[in-house]
């Protein structure tokens, strides 16, 4: 990277908090957003962590620092959009305000936008299908726009008047880290001065749920959302959207923006494997590469936000990789799983977890995992039902996806 890339703003809507402050308090107290599905006939009856009801205008009125004209423009851009787009719009606007881009602006063509995620409109398209079979002429006129993943980028750019480089990036459940890494590169290369990295909300369609059930990934009825615990029962789908504003240090200096963290290193790699199978070697490789690119030794890492989703194969592979990278140290890092609280938010997961990591670095705690009572591994410092107060400087956030996508992002408190 040409110069430091800083985190100058964050936003999140999630099952455990619809803004940054509520989300941070929920992390500290280990509040879980897991519940049961209300429509078992269509969707099955497994656990899930749905997004609470979201009213676009009401959510934006919480962004009180924005002027009324801006809020109205943002509402107008997204009020006809499907829920996932409205969710990212709220998270992006929160991050925009948190970064002070409304008060101390940056030229529109020097701001970029990368949305991490793909197959984001499957539930929307599925919902249109019964109506389409009855009368195809009544398909919503906005379908051609709304069915494209890129509508997320388009709508945010119109709402926030972003004119720099923008696109979606996809890497299965590592899409959030792909967005952070792509955004960091755009800033580092000087293509833009500021870049929003967005983790897009995924709402599973019934087909998606059945597909995950068929590969034995999804938690069944009665199963707990318990990554790293012997009682784990598979992954629990969650719904969240998050946004991190990355900014060149010289730009943040110029406009007097404060940063809670630096995105100090990253790595992303392929396992050369199209299956839904984890790979210890690949996971070790991205963690050690992220560390070496940042010039940080494994012994300096205070905290790891593990990818662990609660599937035995995935959890065990990551624990083995963590043992390889950190296990020989005298002071291994604290490890927890934000998925124990918000569940697996797929495309959004790694951005949600980056936000959680920065909050923990900033506030000096490691959030609890209330469902971790019987750990599958005891060689690492796993956090159980109580939060741990600790000064944290370096935090590593892992994200792995079906098809061999492995990634790790290093965040350092500033």
């Amino acid at each position, binding site marked *: 990277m040409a110069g430091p890339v800083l985190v100058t703003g964050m936003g999140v809507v999630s099952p455990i908090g619809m803004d940054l402050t509520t989300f941070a308090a929920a992390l500290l107290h280990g509040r879980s957003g897991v519940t049961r599905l209300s429509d078992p006939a269509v969707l099955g009856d497994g656990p899930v962590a749905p997004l609470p009801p979201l009213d676009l205008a009401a959510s934006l009125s919480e962004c009180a620092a924005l002027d009324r004209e801006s809020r109205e423009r943002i509402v107008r851009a997204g*009020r*006809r959009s499907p829920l996932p787009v409205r969710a990212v719009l709220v998270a992006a606007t929160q991050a925009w305000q948190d970064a002070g881009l409304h008060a101390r602006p940056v030229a529109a063509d020097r701001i970029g936008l990368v949305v991490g995620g793909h197959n984001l409109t499957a539930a929307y398209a599925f919902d249109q299908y019964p109506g389409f079979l009855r*009368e195809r*002429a*009544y*398909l*919503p*006129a*906005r379908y051609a*726009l709304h069915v494209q993943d890129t509508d997320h980028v388009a709508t945010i750019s119109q709402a926030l008047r972003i004119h720099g480089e923008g696109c979606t990036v996809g890497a299965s459940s590592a899409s959030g880290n792909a967005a952070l890494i792509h955004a960091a590169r755009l800033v580092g290369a000087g293509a833009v001065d500021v870049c929003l990295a967005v983790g897009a909300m995924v709402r599973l369609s019934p087909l998606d749920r059945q597909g995950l059930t068929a590969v034995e990934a999804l938690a069944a009825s009665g199963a707990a959302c318990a990554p790293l615990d012997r009682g784990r029962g598979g992954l629990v789908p969650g719904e969240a959207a998050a946004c991190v504003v990355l900014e060149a240090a010289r730009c943040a200096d110029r406009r007097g923006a404060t940063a809670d963290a630096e995105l100090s290193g990253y790595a992303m790699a392929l396992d050369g494997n199209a299956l839904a199978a984890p790979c210890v070697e690949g996971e070790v490789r991205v963690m050690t590469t992220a560390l070496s690119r940042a010039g940080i030794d494994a012994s300096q890492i205070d905290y790891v936000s593990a990818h662990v989703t609660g599937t035995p194969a995935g959890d065990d592979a990551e624990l083995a990789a963590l043992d390889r990278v950190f296990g020989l140290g005298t002071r291994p890092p604290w490890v927890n799983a934000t998925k124990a609280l918000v569940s697996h938010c797929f495309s959004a997961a790694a951005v949600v977890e980056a936000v959680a990591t920065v909050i923990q670095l900033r506030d000096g705690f490691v959030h609890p995992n209330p469902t971790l009572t019987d750990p599958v591994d005891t060689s690492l410092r796993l956090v159980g039902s109580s939060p741990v107060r600790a000064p944290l400087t370096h935090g590593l956030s892992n994200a792995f996806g079906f098809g061999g996508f492995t990634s790790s992002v290093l965040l350092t408190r500033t």
Partner: protein
Amino acid sequence: MDAMEQDRVLAAVRRSVAEVLPELNMATLPVEGTLSDLGANSIDRAEIVTLAMEDLAITVPVVEFQQVQDIAALVNLLRKHA
């Protein structure tokens, strides 16, 4: 009968405009103006037309809307198919 039909179609158009452009006051929706005058962009206009067709339970070939310039012409075209 004709006036009643006109009112029924206009009411459906007003409902569709209200759904897509909720900031407008529907009591004063002018028939002589265009949807663009009201602040509708191209996709808003297409959505209003689709919603009005669904409201009236009719279908109008897309090509016929190419000649429609204002709200009065839209109401007339929808009436023809109602």
